């Protein structure tokens, strides 16, 4: 057996619909049935609002109103409340078997937060965690996190605002947190920071934080 760090395959999906990304995540989740097969899916989504397992705050009519804005809407099985994904936002879905890391969801979420804090730092943005899950710059959330874990296999993940059109967030209470705002790397640095600029920093930070080896498979073969 190879001693040492787990291997995580980087899969760059490009711009994919939320539905397609869910389908692909499931493919990678299922691969774990025959042994560890960790993957890090990277993508961007066309405008979509998503909700988590707590459905009660988001009845049908509310979601219909969001559709009228021209966004897709999806209920999901992740933790966390409503959030927005759209172009200019780096979305990352780590599909890991926590048995190769640490079998604690609380630990895993904390490591994701630290990873993103490191990304921000590398780009010159001082971010932090708080009792509210996610990554914050003062009272504004720069990265949302919401995950699902079944049989120690993770899905869903994080969404880091790079140069996202922030006005989409005006139509919801993001993550159900009243009185706080949202921000992006571009807003904080007062220059255009795109997803492609953030990706290498995310990969470096993830590799360091999770103490793993990354292989770059390129595009998805699923």
């Amino acid at each position, binding site marked *: 057996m190879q001693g040492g760090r787990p291997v995580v395959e980087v899969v760059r999906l490009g711009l994919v619909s939320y539905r397609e990304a869910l389908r692909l995540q499931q493919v990678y989740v299922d691969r774990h049935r025959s042994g560890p097969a960790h993957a890090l899916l990277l993508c961007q989504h066309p405008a979509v609002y998503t909700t988590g397992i707590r459905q009660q705050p988001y009845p049908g009519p509310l979601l219909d109103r969001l559709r009228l804005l021209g966004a897709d809407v999806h209920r999901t099985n992740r933790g966390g409340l409503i959030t927005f994904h759209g172009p200019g936002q780096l979305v990352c879905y780590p599909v890991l078997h926590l048995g190769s890391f640490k079998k604690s969801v609380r630990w895993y*979420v904390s490591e994701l937060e630290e990873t993103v804090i490191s990304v921000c730092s590398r780009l010159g943005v001082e971010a932090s965690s708080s009792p509210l*899950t996610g990554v914050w710059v003062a009272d504004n959330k720069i990265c949302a996190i919401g995950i699902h874990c079944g*049989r120690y296999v993770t899905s869903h993940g994080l969404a880091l605002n790079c140069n996202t059109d922030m006005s989409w967030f005006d139509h919801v209470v993001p993550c159900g947190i009243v009185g706080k705002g949202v921000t992006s790397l571009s807003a904080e640095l007062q220059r255009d920071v795109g997803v492609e600029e953030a990706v290498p920093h995310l990969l470096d930070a993830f590799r360091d934080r999770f103490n793993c080896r990354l292989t770059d498979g390129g595009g998805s073969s699923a």
Partner: protein
Amino acid sequence: MAMRVALRRLSANFSPRLPQLSPAAQVSSRLLWRSDSPRTLSSTSVLSTALKFTEKHEWVRVEGGIGTIGISKYAQEALGDVVYCGLPEVGQRLEQLEEFGALESVKAASELYSPLAGEVTEINTELAENPGLVNKACYAEGWLIKMTIEKPEELEGLMDQAAYDTFIKSLEE
């Protein structure tokens, strides 16, 4: 043949009204299930109230043929503060290892797996208003569901307290 006789003697010693056993008590109820006539023995009502554990850190406590299910202290610590419990409907039939719900903590939804085959008879409605009970009182008020026990032999395959404690130690190494 001798086994059956020995077991009948054992079951005669159990009165219908046994006092509550502490979770750590080792009950020799396991002997009652090991038999070539499970039908006869299951009707003598196993009064085990000792906790049995799964590898997924759920516990089962059997009382009067109904199993109460919850998650262990180890599990609630690994989750963090529970903010939401997604539980099944009363009447839902579950297979062993079938997903029956999820707990949410730190924006993570973690699936729950049924330790046994059976039918859900009750869900803990307290958890709707007070999901933190799963952390504060995971073996008592933080119970999740109650269910019938369709296949008592499945209990045999679960860990007792001592085995579970050993199991946890091995995880932490």
